[in-house]
């Protein structure tokens, strides 16, 4: 018979009963793996190298275009023009006959006779349409502005915007009164620069218009027509 404190005795099994819920056959999900973004060696995009390469390629392209333009269009022996407008200079050069001058006497002249090269208008038109216009590069600094001269200008009299009947007295010289003008019937409008005869009395004017079958030209105004200062 064994004793309770005997180590050789068989151990009593112990455990905890747990109720199982769910499908025990479902496999466990794998742990999500952390994705790491592809990076360069240093972990950054080489912007400096990209910008440098783009700048070099752009400079080469501009240089190539410039070399092609000058070598194709400027004839030999021509002085460089002060105007470097690509399209305009080429058009002018084509419209005028090109004369190739003889080279300097130090060099052997392959063709001593000046060669005159004329182009027909059709050729000019074809070449103009074939070649796209290449704008010349803008100058780095704008040309200096011409000096502006400040000149004192005397004020000129403004054209009178009113009718002739309202011109002030000092605008025009006083005209003499018509010899056939009855100042008892007509206002003396010559002093205000009008040659129109205005009757003083509107009722008389309407009566006269009825008799002569004319229209009446009536002027309503602020002030007195006879007095140029009050018109």
């Amino acid at each position, binding site marked *: 018979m064994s004793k309770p404190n005997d180590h050789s005795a068989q151990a009593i099994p112990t455990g905890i009963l747990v109720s199982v819920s769910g499908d025990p056959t479902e496999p466990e999900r794998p742990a999500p793996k952390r994705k790491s973004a592809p990076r360069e060696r240093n972990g950054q995009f080489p912007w400096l190298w990209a910008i440098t390469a783009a700048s070099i390629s752009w400079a080469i392209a501009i240089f190539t275009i410039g070399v092609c333009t000058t070598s194709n269009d400027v004839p030999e022996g021509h002085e460089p023009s002060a105007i470097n407008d690509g399209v305009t200079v080429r058009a002018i050069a084509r419209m005028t006959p090109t004369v190739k001058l003889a080279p300097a006497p130090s060099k052997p002249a392959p063709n001593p006779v000046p060669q005159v090269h004329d182009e027909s208008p059709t050729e000019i038109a074809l070449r103009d349409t074939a070649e796209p216009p290449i704008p010349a590069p803008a100058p780095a600094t704008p040309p200096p502005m011409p000096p502006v001269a400040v000149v004192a200008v005397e004020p000129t009299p403004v054209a009178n915007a009113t009718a002739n009947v309202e011109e002030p007295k000092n605008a025009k010289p006083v005209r003499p009164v018509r010899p056939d003008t009855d100042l008892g019937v007509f206002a003396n409008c010559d002093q205000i620069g009008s040659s129109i005869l205005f009757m003083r009395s509107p009722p008389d004017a309407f009566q006269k218009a009825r008799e002569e079958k004319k229209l009446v030209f009536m002027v309503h105004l602020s*002030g007195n027509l006879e007095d140029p*200062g009050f018109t």
Partner: protein
Amino acid sequence: MNENFVCTYLKVGTFQVLNNGQKQGGNVASYFCLGDGRVVHTVPGQTNADKLLSESRWAYEIRKSALTHATDLGTGRVDDKKYRDKIIRGHTERFYAETNARHAKSYSPVPLQFPHGRSQQAQAHWLLARNPLAKLDAVYPFVWTKILNEELSDRPVAKR
């Protein structure tokens, strides 16, 4: 002007003359009337000589055209309605020419409401299209106060 018109004038407003000679206020309106006082055309406000001469020619021509259109050539009798219709059409055409060129040749009537914001000449055409051949006594207060925004006054010109 004196060949086709009998010219006259009337003071209906006033203005002030300042000490330095500058004028303050004041305006002018021109009317082309029949002998019985009915208004054929009006030019509100100041204008130059060319414009005034052009408007006077238009007034003369529209009156002659209306008279010819309304007169029975056999009897010499004048139809007043035809006369008014011709004047209305003339002012309506000029009103649309002043305001909107698309309707310049249409003869639809002018709007019922006063055309605020239009030119003074367009407003004058509107007035005479709505009130054709109205008496001068009825027309000039409207022109002076509504179109020119002036005040009718019998006061003399004041100096200060």
